[in-house]
């Protein structure tokens, strides 16, 4: 049973518009959430994170929102740029130390 789900395999947006990527989790023991970005033939790179004691964290064009009661988080990118085109992975951690990843959403930003 997948504990972290990204239900949209792909998303396409126009340059300058907002991109919203979603993630759901089932394990209530997860208390820290991270987003990673991956380009082809490279490993994932850390983008932004949020603790379960917060509901929002912002870093430049990137904002992550957490709805703990719904076990849902989202990543907002605004304005979207062509260089943002990549696969985005949601990950969750608990006190065990390891991260559990979703299957990713491929974002395409069209010029």
């Amino acid at each position, binding site marked *: 049973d997948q504990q972290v789900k*990204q239900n949209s395999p792909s998303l396409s947006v126009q340059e300058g518009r907002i991109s919203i990527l979603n993630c759901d989790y089932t394990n209530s023991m997860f208390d*820290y959430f991270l987003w990673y970005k991956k380009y082809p033939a490279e*490993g994932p790179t850390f983008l932004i994170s949020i603790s379960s004691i917060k509901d929002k964290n912002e870093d430049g064009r990137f904002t992550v929102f957490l709805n703990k009661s719904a076990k849902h988080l989202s990543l907002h990118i605004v304005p979207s740029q062509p260089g943002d085109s990549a696969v985005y992975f949601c990950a969750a951690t608990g006190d*065990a130390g390891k991260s559990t*990843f979703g299957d*990713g959403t491929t974002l395409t930003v069209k010029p």
Partner: protein
Amino acid sequence: GAGVSQTPSNKVTEKGKYVELRCDPISGHTALYWYRQSLGQGPEFLIYFQGTGAADDSGLPNDRFFAVRPEGSVSTLKIQRTERGDSAVYLCACSTGQTNSPLHFGNGTRLTVT
């Protein structure tokens, strides 16, 4: 270099053979992780080291898989009697070991078992 180095970048082997995949983490990063990624899926946890010891090996699929980190830096993932289903990208990651510190990934080793 300052990043995580994984060698080889690509490995093709025949079914039944033994392979070793190497990871050279960022200097000073005490936590080291191995993940496996199949096409269209996210990274799947295999094993986690804190220093020299395996803190959690619950993700290793069976006893054909083994990993070591004898001096607390470089790690080797070893796969015996490879099967076609072992074909995947094997990712190594490290972190400072502090709670909730993000992972720094290498570019992975693409393993193909023919």
